[in-house]
């Protein structure tokens, strides 16, 4: 039985003048411990799909099951990381990373020291926890955001283009860190991105989405050789470029179809 199951999901946004079908006929499964990516052009409903999976949005049709239970009934099992860190500027780093625990009333000395340890594991020590977010660099802030997301120990992690606002070097470093951390904790993760390279380097499987309405166009299995490597090493592997080419071709045909 699959860990996460998305069944026949349709979603349509209604406004006074328009009805926009963002997603149509989405079916996918994710196994426990797997890292999958949703890849596609902007406006193909990637973020909508993430919101539906994390039950922030109710789909017009269809269901999302996490360990055979509807996601809406499973509280605090899904962590969500946004494009920007969205750390609360008026809270210290410590208050920021403990926020999830506080809201879920799970804050106790044990969970608290876990969260602070996690911060250290991310290479953020030396009194960072007493500082305010604006005193930190973009990469550090995104690492804090990751700690905040992991602190509540979610079973499933949603990464909504978490590296898109960072400079290239920081982005590559953070890819490795996130990938390693998720592997260590055995977390299941879904990454949304429009960066083909990032999708290949980080994932086990890539779902290519076509736009208007968003459907799953094709699924790519990433070869075992690349999966074993860290994202940075994977980018330098000879198989990387062949997978890249294959995905690139599919994207081209998608584009031609829409024209």
């Amino acid at each position, binding site marked *: 039985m699959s860990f996460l199951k998305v069944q026949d999901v349709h979603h349509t946004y209604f406004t006074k003048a328009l009805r926009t079908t963002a997603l149509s006929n989405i079916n996918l499964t994710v196994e426990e411990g797997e890292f999958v990516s949703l890849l596609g052009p902007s406006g193909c409903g990637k973020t909508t799909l993430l919101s539906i999976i994390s039950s922030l949005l109710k789909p017009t049709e269809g269901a999302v099951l996490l360990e055979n239970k509807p996601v809406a009934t499973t509280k605090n099992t*899904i962590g969500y990381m*946004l494009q920007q860190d*969205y750390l609360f500027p008026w809270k210290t780093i410590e208050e920021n990373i403990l*926020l999830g625990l506080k809201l879920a009333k799970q804050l106790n000395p044990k969970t608290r020291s876990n969260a602070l340890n996690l911060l250290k594991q991310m290479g953020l020590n030396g009194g960072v926890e007493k500082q305010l977010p604006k005193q930190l660099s973009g990469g550090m802030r995104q690492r804090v955001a990751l700690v905040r997301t992991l602190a509540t120990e979610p079973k499933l992690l949603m990464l909504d283009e978490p590296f898109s606002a960072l400079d290239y070097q920081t982005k590559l470093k953070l890819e490795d860190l996130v990938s390693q951390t998720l592997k260590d904790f055995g977390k299941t993760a879904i990454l949304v991105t429009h960066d083909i390279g990032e999708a290949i380097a980080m994932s086990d499987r890539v779902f290519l989405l076509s736009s208007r309405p968003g459907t799953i166009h094709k699924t790519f299995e990433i070869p075992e050789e690349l999966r074993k490597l860290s994202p940075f090493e994977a980018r330098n592997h000879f198989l990387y470029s062949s997978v890249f080419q294959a995905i690139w071709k599919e994207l081209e045909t998608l584009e031609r179809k829409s024209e």
Partner: protein
Amino acid sequence: MNENRNKIELLHQNYLQSLKIEKRWVRFYQLIILAFVFASWELLSRMQWIDPLIFSSPNKIWKLFFEKIQDGSLAANLGVTLTETVASFIIATALGVIIAALLWWSPMLSNILDPYLVIFNAMPKVALGPVIIVALSPGYTSIIANGVIICVIITAIVVYTSFKEVDPNYLKVLQTFGATRFQCFKEAIIPASFPTIISTLKVNVGLSWVGVIVGEFLVSSRGLGYMIIYGFQVFNFTLVFLSLFVIAVLATVMYQLVDLLEKKLIKE
């Protein structure tokens, strides 16, 4: 290396010095304006170029000031007005924020109340003065109510707007942690709107003075507003000017206190 550092140090000193000098000149011209206004006022009044009965003179106001301090009537009236103003200022701000919170809480309620807020905001609230005084009977309550009614709607509207403008992604972060609507309000909406709330305090300082002084005009029994209206009725404009000066000083002090509070509360 060392020499270079000394040079930069020196340049920095010069820069600080130039800032100090500029500030002194600004203060100097400010004092000149003040002295010029009061000196020419005194002079024009003594030479009878302006009617001393209407425009009084700084000297007369100063003498009356000591007189009123000695007989204790200034302190009594001042105390009354200050209490009323501070009370209406605090009540109006608190009430305004509570109304804004209710509007944010229920979008339905905000849709329903929208036209009433617009009407109420657009109408000159001081015109309600007589109704309030009759309804609440003349005295502290009705004067405070008069001050409150002037500030409360604009506070509610401004604060509600800032509640709505909080970046929805902060709420999204909280919702992914399963936060309730109250937790969203407490953790994101209120702290993010804090600067706006403080700046409405500044506006309310001025507005609550208007409300309270108008209220005292109408009730006409005590307070600085009463001193003004009494001075006007007996044609004692020295009294009117004295009250005006006292009000100006108090309002400025209150404004500066709010400013200080702002600097204390908002972590830069």
